[in-house]
């Protein structure tokens, strides 16, 4: 029980703060030093290199992508976490349900990012239970923006978290995507968005295949292609891994809610994608036969992540 005036209302973040257990992310708007952040290593604090390659000992999540489709949004993310130039984990997840009708995906320092997602999920559910109604989609995006803003001191020390928020707006009856910057800026994306180390490649792929009113099936196909292309170009992005059965997370949010595609379906989509990519290559070779040498390799060199 809180005294009148000191009541945190429906905000879980304020509740945690009132109870004295504020986490860094919950400290939105205060410049207090984060108790558990290590002292800045010489030259590491806030430098560009620490933002991209990460600090030693800190795992980084990489590529996430979201695009609007006719009935909602498709959100996808690869499964790799890196520590510097090594692979730290092959199966982490970066796409989560925020609540029934929205998804949150994360790129950046994995630890604070997953903590932020947990806090965000709890916050949305807490609000819903205390108030008896859900926040608007924009309200949810603003909540997340505050958390990103609260993480700014940590971001300056190389623990940046860049989320992506997407969901189905039940009032406007459409899918919506929100991107964020490190300072807590919240921007609505009208078509698609991708971020993380392979974000550029993913975004370019989506850009080339995107058109208005894309059906859900086509949107999923495009998201899968985007992650494949990102993994093809970016060493920190993981591709499909049939040996271990690890595939990117692909989720659809529409009127009926958040739905994660089963791994088998994602695997099938990668097989289809590779089939069409191979066909494309072969067709190109038939129409433009190598002019210089008749002995040009007919078989593409084997790739380790190609499904058997």
């Amino acid at each position, binding site marked *: 029980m809180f005294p009148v005036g000191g009541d945190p209302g429906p905000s879980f973040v304020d509740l945690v703060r009132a109870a004295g257990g504020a986490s860094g992310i919950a400290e939105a708007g205060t410049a207090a030093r984060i108790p558990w952040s290590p002292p800045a290593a010489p030259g590491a604090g806030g430098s560009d290199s620490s933002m991209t390659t990460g600090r030693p000992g800190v795992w980084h999540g990489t590529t996430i992508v979201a695009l609007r489709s006719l009935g909602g949004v498709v959100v996808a993310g690869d499964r790799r976490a890196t520590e510097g130039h090594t692979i730290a984990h092959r199966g982490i997840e970066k796409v989560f349900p925020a609540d029934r009708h929205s998804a949150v995906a994360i790129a950046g320092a994995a630890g604070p990012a997953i903590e932020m997602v947990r806090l965000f999920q*709890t916050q949305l559910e807490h609000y819903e239970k205390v108030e008896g109604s859900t926040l608007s989609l924009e309200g949810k995006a603003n909540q997340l923006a505050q958390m990103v803003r609260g993480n700014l001191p940590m971001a300056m020390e190389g623990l940046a978290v860049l989320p992506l928020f997407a969901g189905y707006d039940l009032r406007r009856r459409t899918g919506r995507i929100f991107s964020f910057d490190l300072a807590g800026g919240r921007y609505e994306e009208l078509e698609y968005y991708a971020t993380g180390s392979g974000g550029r490649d993913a975004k370019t792929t989506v850009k080339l295949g995107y058109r208005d009113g894309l059906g859900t099936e086509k949107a999923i196909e495009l998201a899968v292609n985007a992650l494949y292309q990102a993994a093809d170009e970016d060493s920190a992005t993981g591709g499909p891994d049939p040996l271990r059965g690890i595939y990117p997370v692909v989720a659809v949010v529409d009127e009926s809610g958040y739905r994660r595609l089963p791994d088998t379906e994602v695997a099938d989509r990668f097989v289809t994608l590779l089939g069409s990519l191979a066909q494309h290559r072969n067709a190109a070779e038939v129409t433009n036969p190598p002019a210089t040498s008749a002995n040009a390799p007919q078989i593409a060199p084997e790739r380790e992540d190609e499904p058997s």
Partner: protein
Amino acid sequence: MTMPFYVAPEQVMKDRAEYAQKGIARGRALVATISDAGVLIVAENPSRTLHKISEIYDRVAFAGVGKYNEFDQLRVAGVRHADTKGFAYSREDVDARSLANLYAQYLGQVFTHEMKPLEVEILVAELGVDGKSDQLYHIAYEGTITDEPRFVVLGGDAETIKNRFAELDQSIQSFEFTLKSAVAALAGPERTVPATDLEVGILEDRGSRRTFTRLDDARVSELLS
């Protein structure tokens, strides 16, 4: 110099208890019971928006009778306790027993130390997991906590309704049968309660994390017909 009147502690407690009981008896009753599908809570409540039955956590529900503002405050405190615990530890670590104890302590504290006791009676229900049985904790205005094995009746005229329900529903039955028995017990032999005056909340495993649902009027009348 005036001396304050001496009032025997027994008398103070008796007066407070009477006061709280009067407040609770004015409100309409609520039946919480276990069916084969899970926990079922039925309340007589003509309001569509001011709920007596609510969700606390994934597998925990809350119900209260008496003064709305008082039990709603307890409900919010419960949501806060559960969410904080689930966030700090794990979602599995949130249980009804610890919450019920917390409520009992708070109600007991208010009853003995404050001017006015809370005019509420509350229920904390938990849907069992992994073969553990469902739990119903009944907490009275003075902090008495009881663990009911099958059903519990809260609010005005609780004894009569309890006897009626015990007669109708003697073991764990199907969901529909249990709902009908609960409504019949609330209504009594002389009147019928329309679906619009009922609030029905259930805790049921449907494959999702959150198990609480509040049934709408259409569904309730369909089940009762």
